């Protein structure tokens, strides 16, 4: 059964399609995203504090690699479909990175179904934000048409990627949660814990409004891109599942890693890509990531990836 939070996405989507006046004020959107990023980081950090972090060090490399691989896979598919080089690289960057809200909905699903997962998952979320984006930029700049007039200014770019709102809040939250531990965070639990789901609802309402507003991009993008935005998450999830098995994750952890690999970023990636690959049409990436892949993951993907994780674990023995 669908989680209630998804209904808010549907409400926003429907309202926008019906051309309703409904609009969340821009500062509210910003406030909600700041809250969600911090809250996810804090919760993850407090969980991590209970663990011996050293044991996960070997997994870190695998997770970083997974981000790069999904970006490469996306790029290969898109070029095979004759998408222009710059556009393919930009879209690949979005799919190489991850969607924080998709992660939130997926872990929420696990919690409400009583399925455990590794405390380290939010750290993986953070780790997977960046490598896919960097891979996308490299694909654009190294393999792209030689265009001497626009060398990449890596300085500002890496700054944008590593010091953007998303990563700073996630990492900051992680560190604070890790230092403070569950006890230190207890007084903030009514705020950062209890309100999480309700805030997620409001954010999904806004995402529905935005996603439906991007539907128009589908015409420009064409059937191939629409197909890509559904096939890619499925392939990404398979890759994520395979990695999870190798890393020895539980069923819940496997499903979450698959979801991360299947999801496409729309907080960190668009801002970075706009500056790094300006010749790519931002509409295409956003339409794929937000208008198709995001709702697909919410509605169909998450249950599929759970089923996938169970299947893989039963097969793997």
């Amino acid at each position, binding site marked *: 059964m669908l989680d209630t939070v998804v209904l808010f996405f549907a409400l926003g989507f429907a309202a926008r399609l019906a051309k309703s006046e409904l*609009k*969340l004020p*821009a500062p509210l*959107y*910003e406030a909600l995203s700041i809250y969600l990023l911090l809250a996810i980081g804090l919760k993850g950090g407090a969980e991590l504090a209970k663990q011996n972090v050293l044991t996960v060090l070997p997994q870190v490399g695998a997770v970083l690699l997974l981000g790069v691989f999904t970006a490469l896979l996306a790029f290969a598919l898109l070029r095979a479909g004759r998408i222009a080089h710059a556009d393919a690289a930009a879209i690949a960057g979005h799919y190489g990175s991850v969607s924080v809200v998709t992660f939130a909905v997926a872990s929420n699903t696990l919690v409400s179904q009583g399925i455990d997962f590794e405390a380290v998952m939010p750290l993986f979320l953070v780790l997977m934000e960046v490598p896919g984006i960097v891979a996308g930029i490299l694909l654009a700049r190294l393999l792209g048409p030689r265009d001497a007039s626009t060398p990449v200014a890596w300085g*500002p770019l890496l700054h944008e990627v590593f010091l953007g709102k998303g990563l700073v809040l996630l990492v900051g939250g992680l560190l604070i949660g890790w230092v403070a531990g569950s006890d230190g965070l207890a007084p903030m639990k009514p705020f950062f814990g209890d309100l999480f789901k309700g805030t997620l609802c409001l954010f999904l309402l*806004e995402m529905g*409004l*935005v996603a439906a*507003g991007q539907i128009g991009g589908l015409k420009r993008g064409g059937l191939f891109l629409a197909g890509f935005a559904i096939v890619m998450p499925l392939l990404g999830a398979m890759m994520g599942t395979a990695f999870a098995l190798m890393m020895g994750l539980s069923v819940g952890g496997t499903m979450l890693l698959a979801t991360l690999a299947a999801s496409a970023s*729309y*907080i960190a990636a*668009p*801002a970075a890509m*706009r*500056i790094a690959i*300006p*010749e790519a049409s*931002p*509409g295409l990436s*956003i339409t794929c990531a937000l208008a198709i892949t995001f709702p697909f993951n919410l509605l169909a993907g998450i249950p599929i990836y759970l089923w996938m994780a169970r299947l893989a674990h039963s097969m793997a023995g």
Partner: protein
Amino acid sequence: MNTHPIKLVVLVCEAALEKPLCADVKRLGARGYTVVDARGAGRRGERDGSWDEDRSIRMEVLCDAPTADAILNHVQAAYFRNYAMTVYTADIGVLRPEKFGPS
């Protein structure tokens, strides 16, 4: 009261360009700038400002004519092809012209 003629350059563009543009205009000789949040529509479709990627800004720069020219030249070369952007200039009058002169 006597005002001195000077150039006003107005740039309307994607919010993603705010930081680079601020650096650009300073580098090209402007002594300041003023920015407001905006939304709008143009050749590149509607930008209704409802979320991060959809926001626009409107930047005003007061400067002498050579600096205005330099700004126009630069943004044309650097941003016109790939970004939603509209630029116009006007002749206006200021007190204290030295405040906006070459830096």
